[in-house]
């Protein structure tokens, strides 16, 4: 969505016309919903979060100056809305016994393509919402470190540490899941 389109929406919103928001919702709904779902791991919560994101975006759209990309701004709202939503609901991450591990190609290679989805789903469930958020933003949505900094409002070094820790944790969990799977087969 270019600057002219954004200015046009702003103008029409000032006139009280909400229908001009429809193209924006249509363009970004999958992105917002997917990120909310990655953080919350619940389709019901994700829909609630995604709806709130668009309402918040609507309310503060005139304050969007266009310094960052519209998608980054929406990611930022999604990130804070999702974390606040989960904090209010007091969703706790299931404790999981694992040993932090370094990147290991063999671990990832051993996981068959059809099992990938199940393994990722399970491993992500055991991460904290903030860890899932940065993993999703950096690895899945391919946002740069600077964009992740903008979205999370954490310092660059904090983002890097959080990413590194989450990655190690994810590898550890994946390794443990694979070990459990192999044990169950033997």
């Amino acid at each position, binding site marked *: 969505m270019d600057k002219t389109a954004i200015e046009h929406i702003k103008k029409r919103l000032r006139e*009280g016309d909400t229908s001009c*928001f*429809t193209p924006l*919702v249509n363009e970004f709904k999958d992105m*917002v*919903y997917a990120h909310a779902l990655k953080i919350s791991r619940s389709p019901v919560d994700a829909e609630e979060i995604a709806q709130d994101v*668009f*309402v918040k975006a609507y309310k503060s759209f005139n304050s969007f100056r266009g310094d960052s990309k519209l998608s980054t701004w929406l990611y930022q709202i999604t990130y804070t809305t999702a974390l606040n939503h989960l904090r209010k609901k007091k969703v706790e991450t299931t404790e999981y016994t694992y040993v932090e591990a370094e990147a290991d190609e063999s671990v990832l290679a051993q996981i068959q393509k059809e099992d990938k989805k199940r393994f990722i789903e399970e491993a992500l469930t055991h991460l904290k919402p903030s860890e899932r958020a940065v993993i999703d933003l950096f*690895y899945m949505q391919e946002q740069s470190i600077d964009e992740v900094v903008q979205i999370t409002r954490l310092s660059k070094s904090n983002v890097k540490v959080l990413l590194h820790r989450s990655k190690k944790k994810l590898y550890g969990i994946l390794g443990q899941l694979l070990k459990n799977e192999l044990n169950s087969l033997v």
Partner: protein
Amino acid sequence: MMEQEDKLLKDFLQSEEDMKAPDGFTDRVMSKLDQTAIKNSKPLIPLPVRIGVLLLCLAIPFVAIFGGDLPKDNWIHQIELQDSLNQSIQFLQEFALIGTLVVVILAFILIDRILRSRRKMSI
């Protein structure tokens, strides 16, 4: 090394299916936005007019209750009123005052809501 590691994880994680927003999502969002727009829109009745009408409405029961002298031949003077009856009347008068105030405020909110939703529909 670090970049290779990140690429590996990226390829692995991106194999997760794309997640699409559920059907009818846009409609649900738009109806929420419409409700928000109505709530946040500027009041159609300007504030000074609102305050003026409110004061006027308040003044009417005040004048009615405390204003004029009761006529000498009023039935109240013709019979001996007991204290309890006096208290009941006083209570009813106060109740009328508060009731009027509440009704006026509710009427204002209702009229404003109707006007705002009409304006919304006309856009």
